[in-house]
């Protein structure tokens, strides 16, 4: 009987119960046995659980306990599934990456915390990675299919990424009709723009499509909402924010840049008040600048 463990690290706490409820996954679980899932009453000392076939891990490593459990479960598990964007890139939870432990806890609680929050992938090598916040039904189905291959034994030769790595823009329904003329006409608050169905960037809305992997089938775009980057960086993207600045810095106000000059141009750029929030909503712990900021604090 396949033995499953559910490991929930610091996060919003919902990914795994959602996964559990997915009919296809649920079927697999019913044929097997869940040996660890404290949130639903299945507790046990990981040392005594024995071998686990598949461990689903969601969330980030924020507390020392998170790290202990993570390392233990990596040791005893045949296959580790990093489930949800938090576990791979830090997710929304990762937005706290620059907070010092003292800023969020005091007294003895400080000692519980790691110096910063990091995704699971910074500490262990998962076998299967399932990004998404939350992962879509389609990706869950793909996960079920993939797991079936390994239920009776073995493990993937190399890491399996359950989404295609290409950028969201590649097949975007809002692709600019004339890329040569494409221009970002300024930086606008999406709440202030009457959406005309064109490429969001061409409407002055920061859409992370150019730097984000397509694993959602343009879900937000189809909901007339710019991409927020929840699937993490596309293949080849080094850093969502820095790449995005490189991209929009090229086409932002390009037909007016010479005319606007300074300080007009700077004033337009100042309309992006919170670049960190826009660019790293889901990947802050992986940002190169986070690494730099933490290194300055003495946290490596």
């Amino acid at each position, binding site marked *: 009987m396949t033995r499953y463990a559910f490991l929930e690290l*610091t996060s919003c706490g919902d990914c795994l119960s959602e996964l559990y409820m997915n009919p296809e996954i649920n079927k697999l679980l019913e044929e097997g046995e869940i040996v660890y899932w404290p*949130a639903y009453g299945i507790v046990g000392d990981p040392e005594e659980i024995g071998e686990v076939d598949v461990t689903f891990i969601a969330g980030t490593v924020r507390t020392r306990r998170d790290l202990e459990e993570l390392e233990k479960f990596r040791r005893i598990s045949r296959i580790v599934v990093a489930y949800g964007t938090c576990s791979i890139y830090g997710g929304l939870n990762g937005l706290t990456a620059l907070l010092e432990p003292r800023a969020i806890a005091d007294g003895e609680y400080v000692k519980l915390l790691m110096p910063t929050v990091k995704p699971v992938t910074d500490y262990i090598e998962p076998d299967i990675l399932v990004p998404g916040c939350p992962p879509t039904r389609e990706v869950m189905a793909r996960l079920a299919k993939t797991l079936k291959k390994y239920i009776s034994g073995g493990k993937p030769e190399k890491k399996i990424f359950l989404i295609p790595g290409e950028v969201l823009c590649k097949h975007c329904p809002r692709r600019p009709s004339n890329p040569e003329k494409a221009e970002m006409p300024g930086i606008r608050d999406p709440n202030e723009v009457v959406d005309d169905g064109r490429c969001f960037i061409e409407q002055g809305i920061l859409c992370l499509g150019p730097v984000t992997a397509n694993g959602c089938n343009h879900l937000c775009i189809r*909901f007339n909402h710019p991409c*927020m980057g929840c699937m993490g960086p596309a293949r080849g993207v080094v850093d969502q924010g820095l790449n995005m600045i490189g991209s929009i810095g090229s086409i932002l106000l390009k037909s007016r840049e010479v005319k606007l000059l300074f300080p007009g141009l700077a004033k337009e750029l100042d309309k992006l008040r919170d670049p960190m929030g826009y660019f790293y909503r889901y990947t802050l712990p992986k940002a190169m600048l986070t690494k730099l900021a933490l290194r300055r604090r003495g946290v490596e």
Partner: protein
Amino acid sequence: MGKVIVDPVPWVTGYSRLTVETSDDNRVLSILFEPLEKRGLEKVLKGRSVELLPTITPSICGSDSWSHYIASIKALDIIYGRKPPLTAIHLREAGLLLDILESHLRYLALKFAPKYIGGDVKPLVEVINDVRVVKEIIGGRTRNPIYGIAGGVTRKPGSSDVEVIMDRLSRILDILEKTSKSYMDKISSSREYTAKLSNDKYRLKNTGFIALLDGDGKIGYYDGRPVILGPDGSRRMVDEGELIDHLVVSSRLGTCELYGGRNGEVYMVGAISRINLGKTYSEDAEEIIDKLVELSGGKPLINIFVEPIARLVESLDISYRLNKLFRDPSWLSGESISFEGKRTNAGLGVVESSRGLVIHKYGVSGDGLVDDVEILDPSGIRLPVLNKLLEKYRGSTYSSELLDDVLEIVKIMDLCIPGASKTLRLGGVRG
């Protein structure tokens, strides 16, 4: 002196610890439930562009993510000075109700049914899947929806979408009607459960209740105003801002200094509070409530073991409400966003969630960055309630049965620790 530590505490979402101190003669000196999951998410909301908040705050609590989202969007409505049109209001309410429904059903299926109903959760899992399909159609994602915009929603379901929605909703109602009947039958005949319902140990004493009610005295999940039912039976409507002031003090005691402060007044929120304070939408629901009152000995319902049935009641009631909403979806033909309005520098949004009310209050500086955040999460409000209940074990002889009993209460309270630690005022006591 002895100490029993349960770490982590099972049946809780997130990381927490339970500490039982015993005397030399094995009597319980104290019991303490404390959240250990410290995230600090609320701290990084300050300094954000305000328009980003609805996409970040749902992560405060995964199982009530839509409630945080809708509260956030409602706060944004006020900051942008916009009044969403009816189409948007209905779609937001539908999303919120679906999320509460999913959360209730998951609670029933995973925390309640296995022990008290005998584990037949298949129908519930099926319903949850239907709920999710409808959620996806309305708000994009099952968690952290994306259809909100200040003054409306970004997308309306198309006609084929509406067909799917109606089909699923009627199936949901169908199954829930049957399920609630069979559950009630089983509960009524379960000695273990009825005994708990009438046991004084599980009663919330010196506890008030808060719920959102609409103008007709019905439960106002999306746009109700807060009403307090005091421990003394008094009933009054309160201003949301005042409520924050009030609750932040008491919940701070609960999350940080833990229970034991001042006059000991705490408040329960969620399904129990709502059915205590407000009227439901369907007769079937009222019928169950009557039965519940009968089983637990009078109104208001103050036994914590009422919570699962209260959630069952609400599940049924919410499905009625949703079915009614989509039976005549002519409201869908209206505009979905209103851009008119003048910006203000503060906004507040309050809605119900499965565990109780959620309040988001933002202040915005002149450059559009958030400079003040106050968020109330129901788990945070519930924490003192739990600790107050556990206090009753003080003086009892410690045994493993006692610990099981305590953990049973923890389970029934259904706490979300990631959310609980967010019930804070920025700049206040660190949690």
